[in-house]
């Protein structure tokens, strides 16, 4: 359990973006997303500019485009919702390829797809370049209340406990003659979900008490923080992305 605190989306690499302190990346990502959302949807060119920014950061972070696109499928349900909008929307209608579509609905669909995709890309880039431990260190340095970082730390720690315990219980069921296949294993799983929770809790409680007895006071020791706190130079470097995005958003707002 000592290893493997990196999550599935983390891409082990060494790049300028990976080396930036986490708090800087989180702040830049949030600011960028807000700039994107604040952009009027009619300013099509602005979204092109944002995509270019994302592409530049992705190239700097050595994240390849294929991975980024594959992981973007996470927002598929909302794309489906967006596709329905031109048919459901009210108001003025227009004719596109023989279909009567709502103008407002078309813009709405574009709005959701463009802003949603850019937001997903931004968080994927953060996830790809920051492991979970650094993420919590970053939140802590951004003055996130300690109770929240504490819950987050335990959550990420216990996810592994939970998965491990579920695996053990599955092996135990199989070795006692259960034959899990496709949907039928759901029944066995559902019946054992309370037991799973309890077993995971008791294991987790032991981990927690062990941490307490080794001097845990609710905050991880400084050794745990891989990178030093951000310098003003690093803040400046990371600020380029949200500042550029903000400029684009402001220009778009003025022009439309």
């Amino acid at each position, binding site marked *: 359990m000592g290893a493997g605190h990196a999550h599935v989306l983390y891409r082990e690499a060494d790049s300028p973006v990976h080396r930036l302190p986490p708090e800087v990346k989180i702040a830049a990502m949030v600011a960028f997303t807000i700039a994107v959302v604040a952009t009027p949807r009619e300013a099509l060119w602005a979204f092109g500019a944002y995509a270019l920014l994302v592409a530049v950061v992705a190239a700097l972070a050595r994240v390849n485009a294929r991975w980024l696109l594959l992981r973007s499928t996470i927002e598929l*349900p909302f794309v489906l919702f967006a596709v329905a909008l031109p048919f459901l929307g009210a108001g003025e209608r227009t004719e596109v390829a023989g279909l009567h579509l709502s103008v407002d609905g078309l813009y709405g669909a574009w709005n959701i797809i463009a802003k949603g995709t850019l937001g997903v890309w931004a968080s994927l880039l953060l996830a790809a370049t920051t492991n979970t431990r650094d993420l919590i260190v970053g939140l802590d340095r951004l003055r996130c209340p300690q109770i929240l970082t504490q819950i987050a730390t335990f959550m990420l720690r216990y996810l592994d406990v939970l998965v491990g315990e579920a695996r053990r219980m599955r092996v135990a069921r199989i070795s006692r003659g259960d034959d899990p296949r496709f949907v039928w294993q759901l029944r066995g799983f559902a019946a054992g979900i309370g037991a799973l929770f309890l077993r995971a809790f008791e294991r987790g409680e032991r981990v927690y008490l062990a941490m307490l007895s080794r001097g845990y006071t609710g905050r991880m020791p400084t050794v745990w923080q891989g990178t030093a706190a951000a310098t003003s130079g690093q803040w400046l470097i990371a600020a380029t992305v949200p500042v550029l995005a903000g400029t684009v958003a402001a220009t778009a707002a003025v022009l439309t």
Partner: protein
Amino acid sequence: MEALAMHISNGIINGPVAAVFAVIALAAMAYCVMRGRQDLDDRLAPMAGLVAAFIFAVQMLNFPIFTAGVSGHLLGGALAAMLVGPWVGALCVAVVLVVQALVFGDGGVAMLGLNITNMAVIGIAVAYLLIAVLLRVLPRTPAGLAVTAFVSALVSVVVAAMGFVLQYQLGGTTDLGGNLAGLAGTMAVSHLFIGIGEGLITATTVVTVAKVRPDLVYALRALKPAAPVTVPTVGGVR
């Protein structure tokens, strides 16, 4: 771990409404932090982490609602309210949402306020009110506890889904006209089914935990004010 998004993503609700709900969510969370600090002792700290991990895992189970392209999933609000109480419970759900938005791109970062309001504030508040009422009305038996857990989970899921409909009416980026009622209907019916699933999972989990370690169920602790065991606060609480 292939997951699909299910929280409100960027661009669905317009900026001003998102900002208003962000303020609401922030205020509610600040209050929960204050109250939660008093609750979080040595028994609750690992439990809060496990509840958050459990919700995180459970939210990965996602049911697409094909008719409207909206999807639903389990929320875990009632479970959190039951096991760690409303304050820490709301914080657990909020932490899950924040981590999902930051590293999974699930739910837009700019829409966090909306998602937190729906799932952490409305969902938990409804669930805990129901739990508080039902536990006093129903008999103190495992069956009574199961019914409490089931009903509170079911109702909180449907009400939280209605929170989205309300937000869409206030600031949906596309005017759906008369179709808004359709959206409300789809959300209500689909979340009714999700609520049944969530109710079953919540009831099984809570009853099992209450049988073996009743001291771990926050909602039951509140009923018996004279706690026999006083655990010294060592660390992790501030």
